[in-house]
């Protein structure tokens, strides 16, 4: 039976990458769900750009406190061993290579690992003028912490739905949207597959239940290399 992973399951697969003692920063959307799926027996420290390390699962409405939020504007819970710091310190951690894994959402990922995840469009469409773009009100762009995370984290994992709502590939030969950073993505986890970005190209390593490599290739622009030990996505 064919089964695409839902958002929670994508987050669950991503969380398998988190080893004991790692520091992990989670972007908004699907990535933010991964804080709820740390494997038992592992201590993973979650970092958020607005200045906290070691927070717990998302807070319920009752627990929510305006002084305890993550960078995706979600209330979080405290954990023992947590610490708070300023924004410049938080990005010293990011830019300085102290984050083991950054999990980011993506609008496009190229076969070289280029990432586009902060603007649905290209400045060229607006004569390079960001004010003209924002004035249209169409998906006004906002950079946030993504550019720093993409260049600073030791490993960048993209978690996303494999295709656009129109079933167009988001894994492409060249990104058309504004870039976040070049050659930064190591691993792509989607509802259909787990793909590693290698110097030789994109390596299809895991595949959603019931799908064939040809079906994944059909919704992926660059050619996929099929891993010898290709397997069903493991959770």
């Amino acid at each position, binding site marked *: 039976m064919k089964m695409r992973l839902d958002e929670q399951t994508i987050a669950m697969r991503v969380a398998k990458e988190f080893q004991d003692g790692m520091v992990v920063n989670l972007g908004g959307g699907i990535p933010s769900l991964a804080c709820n799926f740390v494997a038992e027996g592992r201590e993973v420290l979650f970092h958020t750009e607005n200045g906290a390390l070691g927070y717990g699962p998302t807070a319920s409405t009752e627990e929510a406190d305006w002084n305890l939020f993550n960078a995706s504007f979600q209330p979080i819970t405290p954990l023992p061993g947590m610490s708070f710091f300023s*924004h410049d310190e938080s990005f010293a951690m990011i830019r300085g290579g102290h984050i083991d894994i950054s999990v980011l959402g993506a609008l496009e990922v190229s076969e070289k690992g280029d990432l586009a995840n902060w603007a649905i469009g290209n400045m060229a469409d607006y004569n390079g003028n960001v004010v003209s773009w924002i004035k249209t009100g169409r998906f006004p762009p*906002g950079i946030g912490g993504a550019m720093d995370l993409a260049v600073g984290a030791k490993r960048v994992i993209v978690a996303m739905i494999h295709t656009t709502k129109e079933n167009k590939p988001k894994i492409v030969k060249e990104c058309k949207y504004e870039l976040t950073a070049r050659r930064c993505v190591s691993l792509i986890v989607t509802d259909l597959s787990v793909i590693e970005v290698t110097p030789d190209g994109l390596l299809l390593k895991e595949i959603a239940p019931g799908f064939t490599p040809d079906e994944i290739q059909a919704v992926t622009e660059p050619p996929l290399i099929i891993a010898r030990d290709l397997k069903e996505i493991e959770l």
Partner: protein
Amino acid sequence: MNKVVETSEAALSDVFDGAVILCGGFGCVGGMPSTLFRALAKRPVKNLTLVGNAPVLGIEAQRTAARTLKVPEWYADGSILLKNGQVRKLIVSVPAMAIYRMQEPFPIVKALQEGQDIEIEMVAQGTLAERIRAAKAGIPAFYTRTGSGTFIERGKEVRIFDNQPCLLEHAIKADFAFIWAYKADRYGNLIYRGTSRTFNATMAGAATITIAEVEEVVEVGGLDPESIVTPGIYVDRVVKRSHPI
């Protein structure tokens, strides 16, 4: 020495036309110096430059983000200055958010569509924090890999360090910093609370005049010297918030 000012009006009576203002907080309710924004909106100053992560999202975005959590009535951010036509330029990481579907357009979109002439400089969040810290620390400029190979690079000096292209980024010089803190003493020593520390601690001391809106003023000696996050040297004025969070 007493940096405590009785009213927010008095705290920002010298804000002038064309002033560059660092806007504390991150963009959500916690840590936003709402009282200071409200007070400035009542003063007839214009052509302001607002610098911050996401200082003009407005209260609607908070309600959308917060879902069932209640956004305080008294909440305000820099968007009230935008609505008044007091803003000439934004230096921000997030002017509006594409992800939220709201009833009304974001304040910056609305202001532009209404014909306001507003310049917008988009800065990566970490570079923004570092440019502000650089101003505080007397560093005129620095290099960073962030933004290399993206539109951020345009017009900037690119230089290779360790085989990686880096951009030259400059300190942001500001006239005022509006920040929030949890507790202060009359020396201007500050402590924060949770993730509301964020850009507030980064901006303290990064402008000519730093004004802190605080929940509570304690006696000198009431803050643990090992735990003071912002030493008073960085703070010029302290004003007690009228509405506790």
